[in-house]
């Protein structure tokens, strides 16, 4: 197996995803299949190859930057309009620090 149940639970923790036990087992099997297929990458000789992070990397460095001029951002009410719990101009969340 490429990935253990403990690793699946660890990765779910990193990703902030609550999974049911059934999901953990299903994803372990799925990820195992997929990671086995991904072992194909090891067969390829990439010595001396630069990693490609983006497509248009040969464009001039500043070719796609806009002028450095401030533009108005979203207003506070608009930015909060989709918040599940707005309050006092902020996003409210469950208490983080106990008094």
């Amino acid at each position, binding site marked *: 197996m490429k990935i253990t149940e403990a690793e699946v639970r660890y*990765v779910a923790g990193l990703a*902030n*995803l609550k*999974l049911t036990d059934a999901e953990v087992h299903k994803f372990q099997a799925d990820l195992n299949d997929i990671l086995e297929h991904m072992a194909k990458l090891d067969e390829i000789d990439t010595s001396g190859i630069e990693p490609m992070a983006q497509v248009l990397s040969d464009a001039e460095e500043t070719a*796609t930057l*806009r002028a450095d001029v401030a533009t108005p951002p979203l207003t506070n009410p608009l930015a909060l309009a*989709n918040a*599940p719990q707005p309050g006092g101009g902020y996003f409210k969340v469950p208490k983080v620090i106990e008094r």
Partner: protein
Amino acid sequence: MDFPSLTIERVRKGLLGREFSARELTAEALRFVEVENPKTNAYLRLAPERALAAAAHVDEQIARGEEIGPLAGVPVAVKDVILTKGVITTCGSKLLERYVPPYDATAVVRLERAGAVVLGKTNCDEFAMGSSNENSAFGPVRNPAAPDRVPGGSSGGSAAAVAQGTAVVALGSDTGGSIRQPASFCGVVGVTPTYGRVSRYGLTAFASSLDHVGPLGRTVRDTARVLGVIAGRDPADSTSADAPVPDYTTELDGQVKGLKLGLPREYLKDLTSESGDLIARGVEVLKKLGCQVREISLPSTDSAVACYYVLATAEASSNLARYDGVRYTFRSASSDTLSDMYRNTRGEGFGAECKRRIMLGTYVLSAGYYDAYYLKAQKVRALIARDFAKSFQQVDAIVAPVSPYPAFKLGEKVNDPLAMYLSDIYTITGDLAGIPCMSVPCGKTAGGLPVGMQILTRHFDETTMFRLADAFENSEAA
């Protein structure tokens, strides 16, 4: 009005000839959608007020004798991962069921500025992750050509709407084939432009180094016209390219004689025999038009699925981190602490495919695996891009299948994610290389299922791609 055969040109003639007003056309189009949409579930939501207001503006322009825009009065559908101010945009996710965007995507702004009438938002796989549209939280879309089959994905709603006639053209998004594959399955034209050609401002991010916005339509000419409107530099998207945008429609002159085409041998191995026969027949048509076809090799193709699903899921795991219950409408009701709120919101909100990809992407980026997967995949991506660059020293365009097979049955592949991923093999390479590519209808199987042929060209050479596709389409119609 015969909506399934309506084109941009026909709408223009009708408006300028005072055959109908934009408001009349829009009202009739909205009624047509109400009747036809239940057959496919292509639209998730209509925006009648916005549509009629846009139409009224076109009518006023005509009444005042002003010049109308190139898309004036044209009924358009927009994939529900592309933001529309004030019109709920769900991304096919339960998480965003009530999300009302505070701004419009640049592509939508440009469509409306050109006079287009946005009728509504189309169904898609959740956050554009899927090849069948079965990953939508709001139910699958049915293929208009065969209601027991998928329309393809992730832009399945946009492709089905165009095929059904409930939109003349539509916007989709493509990260690994999400415009071309549904276009192929539904028998319409689908265009993935060069990476950076169209602004992604207002496109909900899936995998930022691979995401594209592009048009779907029933004719090559219509998609060329829409791309001309939405393409070009946008200060709001620093990845949009500052390259001149030609008038693609004036280049559709049928002049393809002597064009050098490459047929990659790696793309012909795993086709079903019917799809293979249709592509072979399409290639014969291109030869008759005077194109010189030669076999070429893209040797890194075999590793493309592995490369793509490392990079795309890694980027997705970062991009989807923002859906944490703080800002975007949905928050789990059962959380006392902040960390539980994050975990429960995401666990309850995301569907199975999004979770699977977040897990995979988080895994390949996690400590100890980064070099083996992410860095390695970036290097393989460079090799795939180099394959194309080398080929384009010998040929002007590459011709290939879009998918190994035509539309499959609903439910047929949902339980085998790897099989679903492997079906993307012919489309993901174009996204990895960032080159323009499109699907153009290439006939139907004996069972009546559409098959698309793919055309790929050099960076920013959409002109050659459209010219070839248009010549092919015209000879098919003749």
